């Protein structure tokens, strides 16, 4: 028998395939996928551009240009009547304003007799130079009559010029930094007297009219105070309300009303909470304007719905078997909730709280309305002192006219983003670590 192979059998011709447009449809599929990828890339590229811009414009705020001057503490200017041994306050009240420009002139090796040059010398250094000189002498009165090297800050304009942020091609009459000052700056830099140092004052100082002295210290303390108030108030009230709503609330009209209210409050714009804080806490109750406690209460009212929603989800995730086991062993309902359900729901509650706190840390609009836009230069001691907050400080610096303030605003944004990232990462780590699969 001959083998019958597939190749030798007669085969009918294939019918023509009906054109169902498969090529077109696959092309549409590929386009659809491309749209999706394009959308994601759009979002991520925007995020990347934003972060790069912020970092690029802000990291220079952490370095500040200093100049080391040979300062002569001339007794004839500071203490002409030689009273300092008897009355130390003479050293505090003396006129240090002349000493720094003199020292600068001496360092540059020029004789400054005409007014324009003197003005440029004075504008080269920061106005706070006299305070730095005073503090050095008050700490060590034996310096009187001697010549010592003291580092002082330069003015913000020179600082910007040194960092290369000033456009020097603009004609001299249209910029704040004059050519003579640029020459001095280059000369001093090549000698090594002018250098950039880490700007520790940025983290410690408060608000100042001079950009070189401005810092976020006061704003951070205000923010921390408010976050503590939010943590205590919103966590306690939120967890209490959630426990009631999840475990004890009967199905009646009041409970419905409470739940509707919580869902609505979660979607109310934050500025409305600012109006509430202004109207009730400042005008009606009479708390001081711009106090940390007003900001704290307003922010905790704003964070409350978020915490309640997260806590309710965490509590309802605890399986009924745990509750019934506790009740079966003779616990009362309250004991069951507080001794068994709540500890097991704690990780979820903590995660929700951290996320709520991170949201509250970045809120600006309500704080603007309760008066935190004031110029607060001193650290707040108690919650009823006037204070400011980090986002509000950023807002005020963004609105300021000088270029150096814009740089500091970006620096403060970097700090704010670092804090927020730390909080979010903590929340994610906590969630992963304590997640239980029931």
């Amino acid at each position, binding site marked *: 028998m001959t083998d019958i192979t597939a190749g030798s059998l007669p085969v009918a011709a294939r019918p023509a395939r009906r054109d169902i447009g498969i090529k077109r449809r696959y092309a549409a599929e590929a386009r659809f996928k491309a749209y*999706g990828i394009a959308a994601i890339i759009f979002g991520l590229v925007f995020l990347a551009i*934003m972060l790069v*811009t912020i970092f690029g414009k802000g990291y220079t705020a952490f370095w500040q240009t200093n100049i080391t001057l040979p300062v002569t503490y001339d007794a004839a200017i500071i203490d002409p009547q030689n009273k300092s041994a008897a009355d130390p306050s003479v050293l505090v009240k003396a006129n240090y304003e002349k000493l720094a420009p003199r020292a600068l002139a001496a360092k540059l090796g020029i004789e400054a007799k005409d007014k324009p040059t003197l003005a440029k010398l004075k504008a080269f250094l920061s106005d706070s130079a006299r305070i730095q000189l005073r503090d050095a002498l008050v700490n060590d009165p034996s310096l009187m009559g001697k010549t010592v090297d003291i580092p002082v800050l330069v003015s913000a304009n020179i600082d910007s010029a040194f960092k290369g942020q000033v456009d020097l091609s603009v004609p001299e009459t249209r910029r704040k930094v004059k050519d003579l000052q640029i020459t001095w700056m280059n000369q001093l830099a090549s000698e090594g007297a002018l250098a950039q140092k880490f700007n520790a004052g940025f983290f410690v100082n408060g608000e100042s009219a001079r950009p070189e002295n401005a810092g976020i210290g006061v704003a951070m303390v205000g923010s921390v105070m408010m976050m503590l108030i939010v943590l205590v108030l919103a966590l306690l009230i939120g967890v209490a309300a959630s426990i009631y709503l999840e475990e*004890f609330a009967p199905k009646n009209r009041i409970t419905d009303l409470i739940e509707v209210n919580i869902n*609505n409050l979660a979607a*109310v714009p934050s500025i*409305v909470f600012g*109006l509430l804080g202004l109207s009730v806490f400042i005008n009606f109750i009479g708390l001081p304007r711009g106090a940390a406690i007003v900001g704290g209460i307003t922010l905790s009212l704003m964070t409350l719905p978020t915490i309640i929603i997260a806590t309710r989800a965490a509590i309802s995730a605890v399986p009924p078997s745990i509750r019934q086991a506790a009740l079966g062993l003779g616990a009362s309902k309250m004991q069951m909730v507080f001794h068994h359900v709540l500890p097991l729901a704690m990780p979820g509650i903590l995660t929700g709280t951290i996320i709520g706190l991170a949201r509250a840390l970045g809120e600006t609009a309500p704080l603007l309305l309760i008066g935190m836009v004031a110029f607060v230069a001193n650290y707040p001691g108690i919650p009823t002192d006037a204070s400011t907050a980090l986002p509000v400080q950023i807002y005020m610096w963004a609105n300021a006219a000088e270029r150096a303030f814009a740089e500091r605003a970006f620096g403060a944004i970097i700090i704010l983003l670092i804090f927020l990232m730390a909080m979010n990462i903590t929340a994610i780590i906590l969630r992963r670590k304590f997640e239980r699969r029931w």
Partner: protein
Amino acid sequence: MSGYLTFLLIMIIGIAAFFVGRSRALAVDTGGQKAHSRPHYHGAWAMLCATMPALALLVAWEIGATAYINRDISNQVALLSAAAGSANTDVTAGLVKSLAHGLSLLDPAQASNLPKTMGELAPLLADKGVTLAPDTKDYMIPLAADANAQFNRIAWIGGLATIALSILGALYGLSQIAVRVRARTKVEKVVLWSLFSASTIAILTTVGIVLSMLFQTITFFGQVSPVNFFFGTVWDPRFASAGSGASQGQFGLIPLLAGTLYIALVALLVAVPVGLMSAVYMSEYASKPVRSIVKPALELLAGIPTIVYGIFALVTLGPWLRDLSAALYSGSPFIQGQSILTAGLVMGVMLIPVVSSLSDDIITAVPQAMRDGSLGLGATHSETIKRVILPAALPGIVGAVLLTASRAIGETMIVVLAAGVAANLTANPFEAMTTITVKIVNQLTGDLEFNSPQTLVAFALGITLFFVTLVMNIVALAIVRKYREQYE
């Protein structure tokens, strides 16, 4: 006796009552009958009896005393200022109160022989760090000293009464300790009531929001007619004090409302397509490693505070768009530095994660059976999404869009920095328009008298905003509930 000191004493008495009660409960339980409650419940009940009524009395006393002293000062000021010829009773009363607060900081020796004139008194106060308004007159000194003395007397009486009540409460609680007494039930009832009152804070907040803005709005509508406000097309508040008769300016809502809606529209035009497509891609097409990287990255967008977006728009995006339009139009820019386009674009990017996460939940909620059925009938993946899944998820997506729109309408910081403050009505997206939230901030962060229409209009705007967003949220929830198909 100050309020803080009294509070501290009450707390100490309460804690003492707890420990005494607990040890007494342990002592009483001789083993004859089964004790109903553990000892710490008896201690807790004694502590609650000691602290709760006393704290209530303390709060009521403080409020009452302050109100009484304020009314007293106002009455006396009204009498004396009529004689001295001062203008405003409220301002004078405020001066007396500040003076009284300053006097309370003086040493007892200085306080007992007060100088008669402000000239001598002011340096003494300055030494303690108190500076007073220059309007403070000499006749206010005895008034303020009197008010202080009265307040101290009332505070002492109140403090002693509260401490007495606290001790009585502790004794009552301790006297009730016996073996079969149901202390745990009583304590748990109190705890239940406190949980309930914590949950009513949500209602109180809403009521507070509405009432606080309502009273100011009613005052505002007394000075500016509602028709002019809601239908006026010019926003031009002038700087005039209340009742001065000078031109108050015009307070028309329409330019602000138009700006708000226009910017929200541009933001939604950016956010909804991008957010929806990224949610679809991530839930349908993306592999697990891609999803685990992209999802946190998009949530990072959501975690950035809005002020950062605003500054980015102000400093980088606005000038870039302006320079781009200048380059395109060879010379003069047609996009302004602060424009609707800038603000809308940045707000849209901020809202992308909101749309994305809401849509993600909705799309994954569509049952797998529908996907499988469609794929089984020969549809491609994209056809399944376009013709089966998205229509099934449509009510949820519409709800998500409405919620996003309400967030866009209520957004403040981006528009404060990126949109302008000029209230003009225009259809050109390259010009600047302002929004309701910007004007609320502007009107309240200036130096304006509180009862002038310029300040009160902020509350009118606020209540309008509140109700608009409330209505949008309710409509969104209603749509989702009504049109959601039940598949199981």
